[in-house]
C-alpha cells in the first residue's frame, strides 16, 4: 500500500478527525490499512477510485459511520454485516462489480441515500427480501444495472424523493410507483419501456425542483408524440381516460418486449471480469 494512504490514516488517528479521505490510493485491500477498522470515531470513510475487491465484515466495527463511499472499486460482494451500521445515512457502492446485495440489506435503520449505480444487479435474486423495508431512503440511485422489472413493493419506500433507473433493462413499471408521493426526480431514460402506468400522472414531477427523464425508450406513439412537446405534456396525457385505455390494452395483450441492448451493456467496465 502507498505511503500516502498510511500517512492519511496516521493523521486521522492522531487528529481525531472524524472524516477519512482515502481516494485514489491504489488500495487493494483494507488489510493494508492496519487499524483502520478500529477507528470507531469516524463518521465518514471515503475510498473511491481504489482497487478493493472485498469489503471485510469488520467494516461493521465502524459503528459511528454515517457516510461510506466505495465508488469505483472492483467489489463483487458486500458483507451481510454491513447493514448493522446503525448510523449509516449515505452508502455509495456505485461502479463496482456487484451482482447482488447481501441478505438482510434492508435493515439499515437510517439509510437515506443508496447509490448502487453501474453494477450488475437485477431484480431476480439480486435484491434481498427486506430491501424495500428501507423506509428512510430518500434517494435511490440504481442506474446502469440490469433490472427488467421493479417490485411493486417500491411503494414502501414512502420517503423516496429521487429514483434513478437510468440505463437498465426495464420492460414495465409497477403502478405502485404512483404511491411515492414525495418523488420529485424520476430517471427512466435508456430502458425498454413502451408505456408508463397512468398513476405516474398523480405525482408532482413538474415543479421547479423536479426532474423527469424519459428519453431513449421505445415508447408507444401516444407517449413519444407528447414527449416531443416536453415531459409535462406526457404527464398531462397520463391523466387522460383515453391513455388509461391504451395502457390497459397494452399490458393485457402481452406482446413481445423490445430487445435488450446487449452491445451497450457489454461495454460496461463492471463486467470486465467476465470479458477477461
Amino acid at each position, binding site marked *: 500500500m502507498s505511503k500516502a494512504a498510511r500517512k492519511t490514516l496516521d493523521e486521522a488517528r492522531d487528529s481525531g478527525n472524524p472524516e477519512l*479521505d482515502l481516494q485514489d490510493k491504489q488500495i487493494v485491500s483494507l488489510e493494508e490499512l492496519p487499524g483502520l477498522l478500529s477507528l470507531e470515531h469516524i463518521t*465518514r470513510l471515503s475510498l*473511491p477510485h481504489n482497487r478493493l475487491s472485498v469489503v471485510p465484515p469488520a467494516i461493521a466495527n465502524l459503528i459511528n459511520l454515517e457516510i461510506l463511499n466505495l465508488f469505483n472499486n472492483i467489489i463483487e460482494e458486500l458483507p451481510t454485516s454491513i447493514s448493522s451500521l446503525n448510523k449509516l445515512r449515505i452508502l455509495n457502492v456505485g461502479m463496482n462489480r456487484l451482482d447482488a446485495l447481501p441478505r438482510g440489506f434492508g435493515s439499515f435503520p437510517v439509510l437515506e441515500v443508496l447509490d448502487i449505480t453501474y453494477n450488475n444487479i437485477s431484480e431476480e435474486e439480486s435484491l434481498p427480501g427486506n430491501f424495500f423495508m428501507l423506509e428512510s431512503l430518500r434517494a435511490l440511485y440504481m442506474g446502469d444495472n440490469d433490472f427488467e422489472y421493479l417490485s411493486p413493493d417500491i411503494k414502501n419506500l414512502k420517503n423516496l424523493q429521487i429514483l434513478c433507473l437510468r440505463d437498465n433493462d426495464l420492460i414495465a413499471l409497477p403502478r405502485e410507483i404512483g404511491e411515492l408521493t414525495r418523488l420529485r426526480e424520476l430517471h427512466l431514460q435508456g430502458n425498454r419501456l413502451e408505456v408508463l402506468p397512468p398513476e405516474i400522472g398523480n405525482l408532482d414531477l413538474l415543479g421547479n425542483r423536479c426532474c423527469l427523464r*424519459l428519453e*431513449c425508450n421505445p*415508447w408507444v406513439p401516444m407517449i413519444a408524440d407528447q414527449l*416531443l412537446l416536453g415531459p409535462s405534456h406526457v404527464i398531462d396525457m397520463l391523466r387522460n381516460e383515453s391513455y388509461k385505455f391504451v395502457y390497459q390494452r397494452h399490458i393485457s395483450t402481452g406482446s413481445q418486449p423490445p430487445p435488450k441492448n446487449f452491445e451497450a451493456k457489454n*461495454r*460496461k467496465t463492471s463486467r470486465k471480469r467476465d470479458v477477461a
Partner: protein
Amino acid sequence: MSWRKKMLALELEGSDLYNRRKTGTLQFEENNVRGKNTSTSFESTDLPSSHWQVMGNSVLMGKTPAKASLNSESHSHVIPVEKNHLYANPHCSNNVDGSDGQSTPVGMRKSRPVPVNPLPKPPRLHGIPPPITIPPIEVNYVDDNIKRLTIPTPNLKAEFRKQFVDALDLKEAEKEKPPNFAPPESIHSMSLSSMTCTRCGESFEPQEKIVNSNGQLWHTQCFVCAQCFRPFPDDIFYEFEGRKYCEHDFQVLFAPCCGKCNEFIIGRVIKAMNFNWHPGCFTCELCSKELADLGFIRNAGRALCHECNARVKAESQGKYMCHRCHATIDGEPLRWRGDTFHPYHFNCAACGNELTADAREVKSRPGYTANEMNELYCLRCHDKMGIPICGACRRPIEERVVTALGKHWHVEHFVCAKCEKPFMGNRHYERKGLAYCETHYHELFGNLCFICNTVIYGDVVMALNKAWCTHHFACAVCDTKMTQKTKFFEFDQKPICKKCYEKIPQELKKRLKKQHEIQARGGKPLP
C-alpha cells in the same frame, strides 16, 4: 410554683368531639403499680403550658406557644425527667408491660373502651355570625381543656431541683450539677415515707426515681399514657380531664382531621363547608387566600373570597366586575391598568368629562413601569393626540412603534406568523404579507441540505435542483469539497468534480452525452 394543674371545664354538649372524647377515655379504677427502689430523685420546673384558644366548643390545643393569642394561666410541672434517666432503671420497666398497648399492665385493672369512629360527623353551624351578607362562615376556635406538656430544658431543671431540695430542707445542699440530669445522691428517707404515687397510692422505695407532675408524684412505671399504657414518646404528653395521653392517642381520640391535608388539627380549627380545616388549609379556591379571618362565600360548592365571588358572579353573567366598587358592570367596561371598571368612575385627563367605555388608556410617561402612570382620555381628546394604531390589536401605540409589512405594531404584537413569538427587534423574514422568525421561515420555506437533510441556515449552494450547506457541497463521487465557483459535471443530477468525471468509463460518458442530446430533441433519435 403551681402545684395544681388547672383544668378548664368546658361546655361540650352537642359536640361530636365531646362524644368521642368521652367514649375514648380510659378509666382507671385503681392502680397498684409499685416501685422497687427507695432512693428518690426528681427534677421539676415551672413550664408554661402550651397555649389554648377557646371559642365555640371544639377542644384542641395550640402546638406552638408563639401562635397562641389566648394564653391560659394554667401551668404544668413535669418532673423528671429525661427519658434516659427515667427509664434506665431496670426495676421500673419490669413492672409495667409497656410493650403492647392492648395488654393489661401488671397489677392493673383495665377498662378500655374502644374509641368511636374518628371520622367527624357533619358539624352543626354555629359560632361567629357570618361576616357581611354572606352565607355563614364557621370559625371555631379551640379551647383550653387539654395540655401538651414537655420535659423542661436542662437549666430550668437545675433551678427547679434546687428549689425543691430547699423546700424539703435537705441537709446536703445540692452542688453544681452538670446540665444534664443526674440523681442527687440522697434525699431524706423520712420525707420519702410520706410520699405516695398519685396513681397506685403506694410509697416509693429509696433510690427509686420519682416523677413529679404538677406536684403529683408517680412511680415511673405509673407515669404512662392513659390509653396505651406506654411511656410518653419524646416526653410529650397531653392532659385532658385529668388523664395523660401520648400524642398519638390524643390525636386519634380527640383531634379532628383537616379536610385538605388530612393531618390532625392541633390548635385553631376552622369548621366550614362541612369539614374541619387548618386555618392555612381553608383557602379561596380561586386565589388561595386564607379565608379563616376574611370570611367566605359558598359559590357552586366552592369556598371563595369576596372578590373572587364577585368576579365569578360577573363572569357567569358574561359581564365584568368593577375593580373600584366590586359591582357587576352592566354595559361595556372601561379597561385601565389591566382591570375593568365602570367608566363613570373616571374623567378624561384632558377635558375632564366623565368617561364612557370608548375612553383610551395612554401610557403617557415613557420610563415609568407599565401601568404606573397610565392616564385615561375621552376618545375626542385621544384622537387629537395622533397616536398610531397597532395592526394586530387595533389599539393605539404609545411606546415603541414597529413599522413593517406596511403597518404599525406594538413591539410585543409584531410576531412570527408560525410561533407567534414577538420579534422584539430581532430579524424577521417576510413572505406573502406575513412575517416569520428565522427558524420558522426556514422550516416552512427553506432548503434541506442534500447531505445532512437538515434546514440550511446561512449560505446555501443551489445546483441541479438541490441545495447544500456550503460545507456539505462536495463531489458526489469522491466527497471532495467544492465551492460555488468549482467547475463540476452533472451525473444523474448530482455534481461531480472534473477529476472524477475523467475517471468515468468512456462508454458511460458517451451514453450520457447522447442521452442529453436526445433529451434536448424531445426524445427524438439523433440523425
